[in-house]
């Protein structure tokens, strides 16, 4: 039975999966920029965020991956609803940016991309993952409600303010 393969295959499947999910993320991110249809943009964004979530899974940060799904991928849903409701005049509303807008956005994008690339290249990342292989969720919870309690609660207060503001705006003004 030695005919099949002389050597056991040395396939680094994790790297392969990384490239697949990275490609999904990158291609759909390009789709967000190039699409002219608001709902399609939101769908592309949904796939971008799904790809990022899959990358988190690959890094065994499964809690972060699930948060990514709930908060961001679920959030694009609301984006689509806005896309549908605010652009109700034509069912497939198109988005036509002016040349100057494209130029400003490109410059900003290149600046952000450059700084990210420089930052990533210069940062030293530990090459080994923790031997546990499991993200310690209990530790995360205790850190959020222990050491970092004040920032955590402050963020909740900000969210509360946003909610009150939204409720006030939605209520509308009384006619006098």
């Amino acid at each position, binding site marked *: 039975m030695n005919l*099949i393969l002389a050597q*056991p*295959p040395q396939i680094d*499947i994790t790297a392969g999966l990384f490239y697949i999910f990275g490609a999904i993320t990158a291609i759909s991110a390009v789709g967000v920029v190039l699409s002219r249809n608001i*709902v399609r943009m939101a769908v592309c964004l949904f796939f971008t965020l799904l790809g990022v979530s899959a990358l988190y899974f690959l890094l065994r940060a499964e809690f972060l991956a699930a948060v990514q799904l709930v908060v961001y991928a679920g959030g694009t849903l609301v984006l*689509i*609803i806005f896309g*549908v409701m605010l652009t109700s005049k034509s069912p497939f509303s198109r988005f036509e940016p002016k040349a100057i807008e494209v130029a400003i956005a490109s410059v900003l994008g290149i600046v952000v991309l450059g700084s990210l690339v420089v930052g990533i290249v210069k940062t030293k990342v530990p090459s080994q993952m923790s031997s546990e292989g499991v993200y310690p969720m209990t530790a995360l919870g205790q850190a959020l409600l222990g050491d970092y309690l004040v920032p955590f609660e402050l963020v909740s207060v900000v969210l509360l303010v946003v909610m009150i503001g939204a409720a006030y705006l939605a209520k509308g003004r009384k006619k006098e």
Partner: protein
Amino acid sequence: MSIAILAESTGPASDYLVQRWLLEHCGSFLERLHIPTSGSFFDVLYSSLLVGVIFTPAVLLFAMFAIWWERKVAGHIQARLGPNRVGPIGILQSLADGIKLLGKEDLCPAEADKLLFRIAPYLAFAPAFAAWLALPYGPNMVFEPRLSSGVFWILAILSIEVMGVILAGWSSNNKWSVYGAMREAAQMVSYEIPLGIAIIVAICAAGTLNLVQLGHLQSGGIHTWFVFRNPFTFLAFGVFFVASLASNKRAPFDLPESESELVAGFHTEYSGLRWAFFFFAEYGSMFVVGGICAALFLGAWNDPFGLIGHYYAKWIGDDANIGKLLVLNLIAVGIFVTKALIIVYVQMWLRWTLPRPRIDQVLYACIKVLLPGSCVLLAGAALWQLFVPDRPGLPWMQYAPFSLEAWTGSPAGNALFSLVVQSILALIGVAGFAATLLWIGYAFTTGRGIKQRLTDPAPIEMGAA
């Protein structure tokens, strides 16, 4: 503290029992093929085989079975027979329908957004399928036993499942479909909150999000199931069930496809296999909801007497017992699936019994009733954990079924009080379940016998006067 003991007692060696058993028996065959039996390549191969050979057919077969079952239940509730022509008692009806749907033309409206219209059914089906992978079918029958945020992962999956429905509704370019999609969005966004809070109430009593550990924590007999742990989880189970009906768009919350007002809602324009995918998704996620109910509240894979937990604790340490443990696991899978199917049956029963509310009534019930109610339950559950600590340690490590010691020998101060409350709640629950069974049995056996009704196609006389 009990969680720490749990983490030690279920190390990697006991987690991947099935994988190890397979390697023991098929390892030499794999070596002859020069397939490595460890490392990431083997893991991916094993997972893909599991998904391809077991999970995919299981989801599809379950959906086909459940569609037939639902039609049968509907028939009996409406005093008719349901499908009874294809195969014995009509059980092959779904297969026949599937063949018919395969042969249908794949229509797409001319003015639709064609790309989104085509991918929407897959987007609806894939999450329902992915959630199946996280369910704990048995102590070792789990796809990834160390998924430390299993409950949260399923919740995340359920929250992106609406994406397919909304895209289907929007891209059809049909006002009924868009109404259906908007209703689904409103329903999902609002019912997700009581759903999450009801889950947290159960998690409060458990202290872990890992579905396998949740199962182990409930292995000490029926009174340790989370639904009976304290009065708040008892009520939270009801909140969870109602909210899961709504987020799953099951009747009475099936407004996204309410056929009496919106033609067929979001899937009006679909035909053939793409239409069938929406139903695979719906029935797949019905089982997922039943599975979460079982795993979080109804004792996961454990029997009411704690026998599974007892024998699992007895055998787990020793490699010689690997065969016995596999048999135990298979029994556990049977128990888990039975519990999930009971919940699925209740979902069907409600669908054919309750009338459909208006959309404003649906949202009223969520925002003004379920949401404040679940917040009160959460506060109550937190206070309960503060003042009435649960029985310390793990039930299945100390528990000997039917022994007096397990009922009286708990050391902590409030444990007796906790135990009394658990027992009372368990009695209420068991009595309620028994009463329901009697009720259903009475309904089935009055009038004409059930066997006759299943086989005899003659019409049933209604209201003989």
